[in-house]
């Protein structure tokens, strides 16, 4: 029983939407980034989340590390102005090369503020 409670808590810690809720209750400003569409070989499936706070802390992933940096910096702006943003990363995109999505895939990421 005890081990189950612990594993549930550990699972919550790894789950981005649970993290987002906890941060929100702590009074932090939070943005949620979600993989909306993928083409070719994308490292994370549609529906995957990355959550980011105003200080740049983050949890989860939308690409297994390729574009997280860019998403986190865009999230800061989304948190500041409140307008959601659609981001696209792919091999044809300059930014994607710079941030390292060289695996041949293309992904669309939706970033929105919580609240």
């Amino acid at each position: 029983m005890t081990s189950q409670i612990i594993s549930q808590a550990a699972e919550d810690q790894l789950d981005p939407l649970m993290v987002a809720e906890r941060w929100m209750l702590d009074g932090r400003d939070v943005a949620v980034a979600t993989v909306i569409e993928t083409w070719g070989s994308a490292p994370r499936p549609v529906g995957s989340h990355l959550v980011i706070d105003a200080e740049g802390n983050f949890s989860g992933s939308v690409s297994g590390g390729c574009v997280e940096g860019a998403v986190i910096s865009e999230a800061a702006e989304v948190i500041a102005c409140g307008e959601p943003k659609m981001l696209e990363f792919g091999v044809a995109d300059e930014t994607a090369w710079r941030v390292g999505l060289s695996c041949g895939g293309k992904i669309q990421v939706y970033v929105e503020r919580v609240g």
Partner: protein
Amino acid sequence: MDPHLLRKLNAARRDRQAAIMLTDLADGRNRLMMKGDPIAGELGEAVEKAFRTGKAGVVEAEGQRFFLNVHVPSPRMVIIGAVHISQALAPMAAMAGFDVRVIDPRTAFATPERFENVDLVADWPEDALKDRPIDPFTALVAVTHDPKIDDWPLISALKAGAFYVGALGSRKTHARRVERLSDAGLGEAEIGRIDAPIGLDIGAQSPEEIAVAILGQVIAALRKPSPHTLAQAEKV
């Protein structure tokens, strides 16, 4: 994202309820939908399909673009009987992504030595399932051959709308089981949901082969739900 809906969604996920968070990609507004909520038109069809397939994605409906993020609980498997088949089935099912629990009140069978790294409970199913009752995202596999042990979890799984209910036993054994379950007040359609004899017909002989046949049947029930099982799930 609406903070209130985020909390509601997380609460539903903790409760193992299927839910869809819908986002209008034009204005960013959200809507949270639970399985069975009535939604009309093209969007309703898309939502129904998303619940069925468990797949997230962008849909076009009523001239607008929506993103549907589907949150379906992870599938569980409850195996009644710590027998030879279960020793093979438990690790195979875990490998395929199921959260597995093996239950058997017979302490000679339910020993940690026989079930290393498996969630094993040496107790009656009535007690062993108190902390995690059978739900629609659970497969119930009853393989003890003993009605005293198998019948209660079978009835409980049918009533809960478990996505798969299978029981070991010959046709003769099953005929007697059908009689007992009818006496217990279950209807013909409900009892008809039990897969018995258990497992896909692949000519399985060894316990390991039977485990493969069972796992194949469970996966088919999860990924290719028949209209029959869907109708059952809707009722819950």
